[in-house]
């Protein structure tokens, strides 16, 4: 089974967008292009408002990913859990499609099979999760309210690369902040297999007042695409979208 590369966008934010395109629409668009969007809502002791919560869940739902609201102290563990869960979910989707082709018609997912038959399928999903290539584009909300949470975000991202680099499949990460200094979105780190260099970049971040979540997702999408079309152009290999590649 060929699975291609898993492409994930990981959005870390603490609430509502207030500028540009609707982030939920952008998430749906990203999903159409074979990416998954996961959202982590970081809160302090304060409770998140309903609108913020709705947006966070909405983005993940539209983006085919996982969302989780978390207190900043628990961020590290959550980031890795969400990423893993989304990987399993996506891989499960691939395996389910395969199943449907083999078994036909009414069997559309693992749940349609009796529990006895699920074990082996799960082993395949686990195996794929261990070996698949993964690309995670991290989008960090650096609006004013996030300022004092940024050190925790940095720790959590370093921890994420520790977790994922224990897999045998390769990983690539890139990090973007929004709002950027001059633009809506700013690239902090280009594709790299580990995030250690992040430590030197993070303290320099200045925080702004606006929260252009929609434009940030849009930019992230085009960054994935740019790289792919460039690679295609260079090597002429027809690396396909995740869904088409099975």
């Amino acid at each position, binding site marked *: 089974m060929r699975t291609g590369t898993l492409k994930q966008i990981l959005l870390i934010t603490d609430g509502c967008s207030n500028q540009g395109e609707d982030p939920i629409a952008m998430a749906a668009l990203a999903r159409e292009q074979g990416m998954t969007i996961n959202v982590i809502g970081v809160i302090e002791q304060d409770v998140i408002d309903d609108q913020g919560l709705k947006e966070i869940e909405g983005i993940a739902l539209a983006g085919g990913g996982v969302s989780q609201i978390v207190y900043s102290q628990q961020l*590290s563990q959550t980031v890795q859990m969400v990423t893993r869960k989304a990987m399993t979910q996506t891989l499960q989707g691939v395996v389910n499609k395969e199943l449907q082709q083999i078994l036909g018609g009414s069997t559309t997912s693992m749940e349609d099979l009796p*529990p006895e038959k*699920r*074990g082996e399928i799960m082993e395949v999903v686990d195996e794929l999760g261990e070996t698949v290539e993964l690309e995670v584009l991290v989008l960090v909300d650096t609006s004013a309210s996030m300022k004092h949470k940024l050190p925790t975000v940095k720790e959590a991202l370093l921890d994420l690369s520790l977790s994922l680099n224990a897999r045998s499949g390769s990983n690539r990460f890139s990090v973007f902040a929004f709002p950027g200094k001059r633009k809506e979105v700013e690239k902090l780190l280009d594709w790299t297999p580990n995030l250690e260099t992040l430590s030197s970049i993070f303290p320099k971040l200045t925080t702004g007042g606006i929260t252009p979540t929609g434009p940030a997702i849009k930019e992230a999408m085009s960054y994935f695409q740019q790289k792919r079309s460039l690679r295609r152009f260079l090597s002429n290999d027809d690396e396909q979208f995740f869904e088409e590649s099975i």
Partner: protein
Amino acid sequence: MMMNNSLKSLSKIRSGTIISGKWHGKRYTIIKELGAGANGVVYLVRASDRQAALKISDNPSSITSEVNVLKSFNKVQGSALGPSLLDVDDWNQNGHQYSFYVMEFIKGPDFLSFVQQKGPEWLEVLVLQLLSDLEILHQNGWIFGDLKPENLLVTGPPARIRCIDVGGTTLNGRAIKEFTEFYDRGYWGMGSRKADVGYDLFAVAMIIINTAYPKRFNKTTGGESQLMEMVRRKPELKRFEPMLKKALLGKYASAAEMKSHMLGALRPSQKQSVSSSTPKSRTQLHQKKYRTAVSKPKKKSRFLETLLLITAVSMIYVFYLYIQVL
């Protein structure tokens, strides 16, 4: 960690509710909630004639993974790795489908409560039992992963430690699936999150340290320096110091090695006679002594016996041939 909405609804199943399986048709009556975590909610239930524990989740993948591990554990003869598995099924409720499995109900307090109630001398007993179980688990290719006091229950009498929650159990060599920071080698900057024997043994060391710091503590500098400093600060951890250091640094090749080191360090006569040397050399000395004193001569004498027998038989045979020829 906050739960998502459907998991929240799963944690409110009222006592008396009947969970009936879609595939196997067995019925379970909810008695009370036993606990909840990231992967689901566990209830005490009444099955036809006995009590059992039922873990239910909105995520069929995590249930299937855990069932896979429990099935594999249950195949290991003569040991009690994890609760035994009784049933796996789905439950349809209000248009939702939930997955669940039913397992042996393990009755008893968790590791920390037990040691606090019964006294520190139980710590060694339980850790030795745990190391024996881990040895078997490792020999079967598994790494427990999310090893922590909450996932260790003590049943009895006689007191016996049991591991529950196999949600973090991973094949040796893969990436660790699930962990809890305080017990995680990666969090302390003392190694990778690749599942290996050393990963579990690191967690065992942290569980021992945890008994002296029931509220745990946070990372400051991390690494060996912080952890060993925390060990030295507590007199009750003194006797474990060399062992903890070795486990934290990943120097034990197996749970059995850690266990024999612990046994060696506990032997009172040895403690007095070789108290100045490090326990590492103490076990080595101990093993060497055993080998030279008992096993080698035994082997030698057995070898001699065999030699004698072979010579005798061949001599008889030669004699027989000789007679035949004549």
